């Protein structure tokens, strides 16, 4: 027993205390967190507000004033207020579900809003409609928007509204660009152009584009004789054509819940990945170290001190700890992330218990196969031929993930939950889904899992005992089966 622990401890240390493991496995989530945090920090850094003017060449007429009013201080403030209200309302709604205080929701809303609202104070400079566009935009290339010493009213953008943007008659449309007359009586309008100085923030560019586009649409509506004769304002027309938003609610036995769709969908995927990754990393290391012990001929030296059974059990237990460590690090990072962003409510703690339980089942099955495959060959290259059953177990969850998470209680899903080898993965996907499987299926699946663990461990022990001292031609699967039946 003590010897098995010594073997397990060495196996664990020699795997974990390597640069490859620390960087590849443990540091990866840390790196991701650092990078994500860094990006968040950088985007939150207050940037100097951009000042300058947007020149407008209004060839259509009636648009320039509307652009001016859209860029006016009052209009910008009104827009900011609207965004803030909308974001705050959304945050409060989520906060109510998540059970977070309103203050926190307000704070979150403030943060989110600061990302959305404009970062520029722009004035509008109206140029004569017949101004030469190429001359007007010529100076833009020389403007350095980040130069603090430059004239704060310097031109940083030029918007050109062609005649066809408002009046969609064939001639104007044809002359303005490639937009011809549409079909069925409706006509197509021409697009407009915005030229900006180099290195203007894309968000600001987008802001200019949106405002100009909105001004053009307002001008179009106002110029339309039908709207005029009906006595409608552009705002009324916009209100008429705006599309309503639908509220998505999931009906459950405990009441209607507003779905947090995307995250809920990700959970089965995340759990399956966690399970697969921790099991496979441990299993892969087990194969590598076993083959290495054979290739470096250290195997028989070890067998002078421990029995093959002690060695195999020790190695499997050592790698099990490696797998558990990975599981702990990644699921810890995941749970931590959910806790920080107040999403803990979407995670049922029982799922973590099942995760560990199914980890043991899946790990022992894979590890037994890996130990058997590793013991039977003398080189890593030869192990590939024996890996096919293991590859099936690894690949199937990927293929099954979509059909099972779409219909977790279909006949197909139920059958797959009882197939030895892949059942831990299938069951994990189903348990994380929106419709939990019938209660009786869980213990049955676990029982099948335990039985397959016993079988795999028994077969692996037989193969391991014979395989560890076999050198030369690598055995094929049939030979392995013979070894199992022989001893």
């Amino acid at each position, binding site marked *: 027993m003590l010897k098995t622990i010594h073997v397990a401890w060495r196996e664990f240390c020699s795997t974990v205390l390597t640069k490859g493991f620390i960087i590849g496995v443990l540091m990866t989530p840390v790196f991701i967190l650092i990078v994500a945090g860094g990006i968040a920090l950088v985007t939150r850094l207050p940037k100097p507000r951009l000042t300058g003017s947007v020149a407008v060449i209004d060839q259509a007429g009636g648009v320039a004033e509307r652009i001016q009013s859209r860029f006016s201080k009052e209009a910008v403030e009104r827009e900011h207020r609207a965004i803030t209200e909308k974001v705050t309302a959304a945050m409060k709604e989520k906060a109510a579900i998540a059970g977070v205080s309103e203050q926190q929701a307000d704070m979150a809303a403030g943060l989110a809003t600061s990302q959305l609202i404009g970062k520029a104070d722009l004035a509008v400079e109206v140029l004569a409609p017949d101004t030469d566009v190429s001359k007007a935009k010529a100076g833009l290339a020389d403007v350095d928007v980040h130069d603090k010493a430059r004239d704060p009213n310097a031109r940083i953008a030029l918007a050109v509204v062609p005649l066809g943007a408002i009046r969609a008659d064939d001639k104007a449309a044809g002359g303005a660009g490639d937009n011809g007359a549409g079909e069925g009586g409706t006509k197509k309008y021409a697009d407009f152009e915005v030229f900006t100085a180099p290195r203007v923030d894309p968000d600001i560019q987008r802001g200019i584009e949106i405002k100009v586009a909105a001004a053009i649409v307002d001008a179009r509506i106002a110029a339309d004789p039908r709207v005029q004769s009906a006595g409608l304002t552009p705002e009324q027309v916009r209100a008429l054509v705006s599309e309503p938003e639908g509220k998505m609610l999931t009906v459950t036995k405990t009441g209607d819940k507003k779905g947090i769709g995307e995250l809920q969908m990700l959970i089965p995927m995340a759990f399956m990945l966690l399970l697969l990754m921790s099991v496979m990393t441990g299993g892969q290391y087990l194969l590598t170290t076993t083959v*290495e012990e054979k290739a*470096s001929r*250290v*195997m028989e*030296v070890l067998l*002078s001190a421990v029995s093959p059974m002690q060695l195999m059990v020790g190695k499997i237990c050592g790698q099990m700890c490696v797998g558990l460590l990975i599981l702990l690090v990644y699921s810890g990072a995941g749970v931590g992330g959910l806790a920080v962003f107040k999403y803990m409510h979407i995670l049922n703690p029982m799922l973590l218990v099942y995760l560990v339980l199914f980890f043991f089942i899946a790990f022992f099955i894979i590890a037994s196969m890996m130990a058997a495959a590793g013991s039977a060959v003398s080189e890593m290259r030869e192990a590939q031929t024996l890996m096919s059953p293991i590859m099936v177990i690894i690949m199937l969850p990927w293929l099954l993930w979509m059909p099972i998470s779409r219909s977790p209680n279909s006949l197909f899903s139920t059958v797959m939950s009882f197939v030895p080898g892949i059942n831990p993965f299938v069951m994990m996907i189903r348990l994380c889904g929106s419709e939990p499987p019938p209660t009786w299926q869980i213990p049955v699946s676990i029982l099948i899992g335990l039985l397959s663990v016993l079988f795999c461990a028994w077969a692996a022990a037989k193969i391991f005992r014979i395989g560890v001292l076999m050198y030369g031609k690598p055995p094929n699967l049939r030979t392995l089966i013979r070894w199992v039946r022989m001893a």
Partner: protein
Amino acid sequence: MPDAIVARKLRKTFGPKLAVSDLDFNIPQGSLCGVIGPNGAGKTTTIRMIMSIIFPDSGELSVLGKPSAVESKDRIGYLPEERGLYKKMRVGAFLTYMAKLKGVDPGAASKKSSDWLERTDLPGVARKRCEELSKGMQQKVQFIAAVIHEPELLILDEVFSGLDPVNRRLMRELIEEQSRAGRTILFSTHGMYDAEQLCDRILMIHRGQKVLDCTLGEIRARFDPRTIVAETLDGASIDAAERLRSLPGVESVEPGKGSLTLRLAEGADVPEIFGRLALACPMRRIELKQVTLEDVFIDLVQASGETLRREDLQSADAPPRPSGRAEEPAHA
């Protein structure tokens, strides 16, 4: 004294191949026994069966009074033929690990490993990775791993293979030291010279069967020497050869490089012939050639119908030995 190892009618087959058949032998406690035999004779199979790494198809084994070595693994030190080290592991850590696996108290294990490294002239390698060591140093480390727990029985499989003469001597010294400390040692080799230098007992296996099992003295007595090397003052002239051939009891005379090799007739009186030789011609040197293990080995192998050529036996790791009569099958 009880026997450390007792084997009765051991038999092992690998598929259709008979590796060991009806092997009986006793290894007395405290003896230093060499297992010799040509390649593929069944030495390693026998040793693995003693170690309970593989199990005999039939027959009985008793190791240190127990039916299986598994029960007394911590009292046995084993250096397998296929031996290696963890390439990336540090030497000190490896020896400490092996000591712990062999039941040495974890607290004492690291002290023991550093003591042993000092003793075997390997100070300062404890922090080195195993792959950084030379082959000779690796062999020493493996030897330490086998004896670090001070076993009563030491089993060394092909212990001299791959060693240069300096390390070969060092290994012999290490083994002798263990033997002086009262340990029972069983080692296999096909280097006859090493066996002859070290063993007090020889077990020879050929084609899975025991062909010889006795002490070195018994071998010498049994394989009565009948070869005399005579170096005459006149440089082994043809005249001298003729004169010696005519002496009673001398069967044949072969001229060699500056000396003559005389083969004696069956039952010839050796001291009497020595006198006659000295009278027949002026001699610089007259020597009764001692039978070597190699001669015995080849005799036995060839007697059993194996047509082994000398080169096969004089493998790279066996130093060449002067011997004038191995080419011919002698008396059996």
